[in-house]
């Protein structure tokens, strides 16, 4: 190995293409444990307050929740397609549009989430002195509902920003919006989707038949 070879080893210059992916997967492992603490708190509540959890979950907006789930699943498909397009010489012109579609779907998700929260505020489902449900544990359910969807929403905001930025950068052929960066951002997006995939049944579908 020459000094020149050594000198090129950092990720800023000509890195191994898998370095960024490995870095993102390691980051996602940490994110899993970040959300994981909330899932533990959720499990505690569900096992100790089954009635409260059921009462609370019945008051979530299952229509908006399902629509939002469908939007996110579609957005994951869209960004996966974008990554596939970027790998193919003939389809590369579609990448930016697919990235913009993904970001757009994510933005719609956030708007709908805001609508949900707004409605829940008006129905007195936000934990506090005027909380609407007298069942024990229902307040904790909604507390976790807002913390979990809120934290998820913050991650979505970062994702929408990243993918939107990459869509613009890719359209303008910027060097920082290449295949590697897009694939890494897509991994992040899929993870945020995966978290929602679990939040959906845990928050919206606890006891719909009661």
């Amino acid at each position, binding site marked *: 190995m020459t000094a020149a070879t050594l000198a090129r080893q950092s990720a800023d210059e000509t890195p191994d293409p898998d370095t960024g992916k*490995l870095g993102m997967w390691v980051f996602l492992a940490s994110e*899993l*444990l970040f959300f994981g603490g909330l899932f533990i708190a959720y499990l*505690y509540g569900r096992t100790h307050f089954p009635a409260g959890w059921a009462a609370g979950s019945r008051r979530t907006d299952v229509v908006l929740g399902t629509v939002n789930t469908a939007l996110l699943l*579609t957005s*994951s498909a869209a960004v996966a397609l974008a990554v596939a397009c970027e790998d193919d010489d003939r389809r590369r012109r579609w990448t930016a549009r697919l990235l913009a579609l993904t970001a757009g779907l994510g933005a719609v998700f956030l708007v709908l989430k805001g609508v949900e929260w707004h409605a829940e505020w008006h129905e007195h489902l936000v934990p506090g002195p005027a909380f609407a449900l007298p069942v024990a544990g229902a*307040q904790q359910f909604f507390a976790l509902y807002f913390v979990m969807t809120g934290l998820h929403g913050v991650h979505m905001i970062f994702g929408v920003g990243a993918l939107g930025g990459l869509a613009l950068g890719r359209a303008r052929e910027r060097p920082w919006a290449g295949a590697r960066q897009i694939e890494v951002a897509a991994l992040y997006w899929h993870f945020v989707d995966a978290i929602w995939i679990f939040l959906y049944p845990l928050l919206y579908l606890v006891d719909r*038949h009661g």
Partner: protein
Amino acid sequence: MAEARTPTFARERRGIALAWIALLALMLTSLGSAYLKLGPWNMVAGLVIAGIKVAIVAWLFMRLRAAGALIRLAAVAGLGTWGLLLALSGVDYATRTLTSAAVQRPQQLLPVQAASAPRHALQ
């Protein structure tokens, strides 16, 4: 090398399309099953279906199918560590006997400290 195992664009597009349809179908199944009276199996159904959906996202969309051992290990490590948190705290929760005392009965009242001197948000 991961690149050599990446399928052609047409195959990948088909895979993504099929996965998308499967994901939506699973979502509707999960939704539907919630309206059936299955007792504790409702939660099981919800979690199992969610697990399958995440597996599809991870395997196909996140390309774990084509990834090397190291990345797969990274994918599993977080889940495994979370599992340890669940398992060992579960030992406590499964074996702790809770004897209810008056103050512990859940109630939807203000906690005592709300009556004390107001604090500002940073405290």
